[in-house]
């Protein structure tokens, strides 16, 4: 799951997909700035021309996710994500997939704690088709009863699938343990009992309450002009009605201490270790320093954790650090795959690496490498329309578009001393949650 604004745990060896903007708050020369418009009913439209290919990415972002669910609503945001593409009064089950795929398009959807989004990529000439579809499923999803029932089995399967994948399951358990009982620590798929008992009226109520224009952000990036996008967006989204309840501010998450430790017996022969520290929320000015700190600690083969734990001490097979900056809280994680016999030594070695950063700081060369890595991540993101659209959608729902565009420029202002300060502020010797997967 891509809950992070900047940094995601996309697998132990995969690099983070950073969504960030170009130097000095400007988009690079090849790209014009995105145009942001708020329709009278509250729908935010972000459009950017991107002529890398003849396709257009259209994404509907909704300001609703796992954190908005009450105890008896767990999993509803995610369930909606599964149900929206199933149909509307004018679109029978199966027809949406056939419509998009027959045109060479694709669709995807994703649920996080802060947002849910629905993505399509279609040939630019089919933009109208794509936007009409997103507007239709945004408020007219019909939840056919048969589909609603059979989809329960699919969600149970998804729960099984996550459990069978130790790396995904570790990230999930670690997030839950680091936040419980805060809303960011809830199970995003819900629980089997709640899903089994889910009724159509319950889901429809949740949908009607939250899927309203003021919670919606439409991002369109591709081989179209912002004027074309806006005209089509007004036609398809401008007429949607409904008012939001307003989103509650969450209480701060609990402090972490040595009580947050969980060992899980697993069938795998290898062990997995995950540590999570409380870190800055996306709204904090500390995000830039924490971002660079995380790069330096564990982003690449040259990072400190890799060089120390994998190359020098040979304690782990793989290790990575990540920063998940959500809207109202954040965590820095370190995850590793290793021999079960090395669990204690690896944890001590990770803490040593962190302690050295706290005590002696980072080098200017490390700071420079982290900056160029951030610049490079952005440059690779803008290769595709959907990559760029995703960074804008995430920024608009959890941060601001302006912050996003100023990101790289601000990152460059951060000094080595500020990176060290971030380590001192957030990465304590005992103030972390720990999950270990131990071979049976």
């Amino acid at each position, binding site marked *: 799951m891509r809950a992070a604004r900047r940094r995601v745990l996309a697998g132990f060896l995969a*690099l983070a997909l950073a969504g960030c903007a170009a130097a000095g708050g400007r988009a*690079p020369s*090849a790209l014009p700035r995105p145009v942001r418009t708020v329709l009278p009913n509250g729908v935010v439209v972000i459009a950017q021309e991107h002529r*890398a*290919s003849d*396709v257009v990415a259209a994404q509907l972002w909704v300001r609703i996710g796992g954190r908005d669910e009450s105890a008896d609503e767990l999993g509803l945001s995610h369930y909606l994500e599964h149900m929206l593409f*199933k149909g509307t009064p004018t679109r029978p*089950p*199966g027809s949406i*997939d*056939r419509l998009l*795929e*027959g*045109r*060479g*398009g*694709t*669709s995807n959807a994703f649920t996080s704690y802060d947002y849910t989004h629905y993505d399509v*990529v279609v040939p630019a000439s089919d933009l109208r088709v794509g936007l009409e579809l997103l507007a239709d499923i945004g408020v007219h999803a019909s939840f056919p009863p048969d589909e609603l*029932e*059979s*989809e*329960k*089995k*699919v969600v*149970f*399967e*998804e*729960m*099984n*699938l996550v*459990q*069978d*994948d*130790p790396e995904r399951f570790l990230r999930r358990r670690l997030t839950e343990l680091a936040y419980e009982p805060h809303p960011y620590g809830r199970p995003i798929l819900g629980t089997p009992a709640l899903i089994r008992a889910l009724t159509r009226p319950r889901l429809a109520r949740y949908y009607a309450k939250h899927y309203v224009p003021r919670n919606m952000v439409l991002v369109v990036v591709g081989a179209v002009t912002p004027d074309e996008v806006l005209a089509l967006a007004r036609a398809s989204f401008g007429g949607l009605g409904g008012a939001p309840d307003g989103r509650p501010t969450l209480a701060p998450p609990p402090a972490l201490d040595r009580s947050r430790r969980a060992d899980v017996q697993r*069938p*795998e*022969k*290898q062990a997995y270790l995950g540590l999570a520290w409380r870190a800055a929320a996306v709204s904090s000015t500390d995000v830039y320093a924490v971002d660079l700190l995380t790069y330096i600690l564990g982003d*690449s*083969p*040259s990072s400190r954790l890799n*060089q120390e734990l994998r*190359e020098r001490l*040979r304690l782990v*097979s793989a290790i990575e650090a990540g920063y998940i900056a959500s809207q109202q809280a954040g965590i820095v994680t370190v995850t590793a*795959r290793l*021999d079960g016999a090395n669990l204690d030594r690896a944890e001590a070695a990770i803490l040593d690496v962190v302690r050295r950063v706290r005590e002696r700081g980072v080098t200017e*060369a490390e700071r*420079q*490498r982290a900056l*160029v*890595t951030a*610049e*490079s*991540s952005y*440059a*690779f993101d*803008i*290769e595709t329309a959907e990559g760029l659209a995703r960074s804008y959608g995430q920024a608009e729902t959890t941060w601001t578009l302006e912050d996003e565009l100023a990101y790289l420029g601000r990152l460059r202002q951060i000094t080595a001393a500020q990176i060290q300060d971030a380590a001192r502020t957030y990465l304590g010797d005992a103030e972390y949650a720990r999950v270990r997967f131990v071979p049976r």
Partner: protein
Amino acid sequence: MLLGACLAAAPAAAAGEVVRVTLPNGFTVLVRENPVAPVVAVSLMVRTGTRWERRETAGISNFLHAVMVKGTARHGGAELAEAIAALGGKLSATGDIDYSEIRASGLARFWRELLSLTAELALEPRLAPDEVGPERDWLLSRIQKRRDSAPARAFDELYTALYGPHPYALPVLGTRESLERLDHAALVAAYRAAYQPQRMILAVSGQVSAPEVLAEARRLFGGTPRGPGTPDPVLPAPAPAARRVPVQMPAQQTQILVAGLGPSLDDPDHAAVKVLSTVLGGGMAGRLFAELRDRRGLAYTATSYYDPVRGPAALVLYLGTAPENAVRAEAALREEVERIRREAVGPDELRRAKGYLLGRYAMDRRTNERQAWYLAFYEIEGVGQDYPERYRTAVEAVTADDVLRVARRYLAAPTTIVVGPR
């Protein structure tokens, strides 16, 4: 002199066009200028991989490449990692089925440094004896990880059962037994046999100038003398098990794979089998997803694979499902195989499959990393750089009768693997 003459003859590429030059020593260079983003991607492929391996050398190509990235004659492992990171770059090397590959990518303004590090890795790897043990341990941990993962395990079991004596049966990572036997000397010998200029292809895609990249590639790779050549192996014919193979392992899900041997990339039937695979398991309107997942809730994963290779390619239908649904899911999957061999697909379904297939193909070729890969891959497979256009035409020409014919031919006696709890 020669260099100047060749340079003058090197055509300048219009955006999107591919420049292809073979140097006198047999080394091939492909460059695609792509102004979209300030990045560059490099793929250096060499003709070695599973195809050249035997049971006792399984995984040697991948093992070799794991040790290669640990340093060059000029840069130690940590230095190399730092040098790459300073370019905003990534560098990795792995074995594969029909080739092995060194991949590099980074910011376009560093293209020269990136190419230079790629050349160092290919031509002057340190191959230090003391790196062999730790990298073996690392690979053994990855083999264990695959054994612990039900989907990965299922695919490994499938290839074993589907290919029999053919080397495509072997896992790219190798086996615990083979890796424990392979030593430093074996890796050095494998390196010498593989890294000869006439077996290597360099593809570059990004915000670069093709003539400049060609000149630099010539400087870096042109001086290596042509090698003695390594004969292409004579491969035994695959012998599919054509039966059901159950495998027990603890897991929350059961994996069901039904597969047949399909045609190779350059076979006239390739496009029709691609369409067949897409009708069954391509996208969310594919039959497996629409019928088995959406309509009946019998699986979460419901898809198909038919990845191109030079030899016979596996056509795999794949379900991941709850153990209590496994029997019904397997029966339903078999019924889908029977149905596609019995009835021709309708026109709408055929149109959807072709649209999806070609749309995905176009989308997959948008990034520079994928572009560099495709350029090198089509060269290594010997199908020519006009392949994408020929493939598109061939897919468009596929009829419902073609799909029926290839379904009957290639799914006549499928091999089934079921991996899950008792």
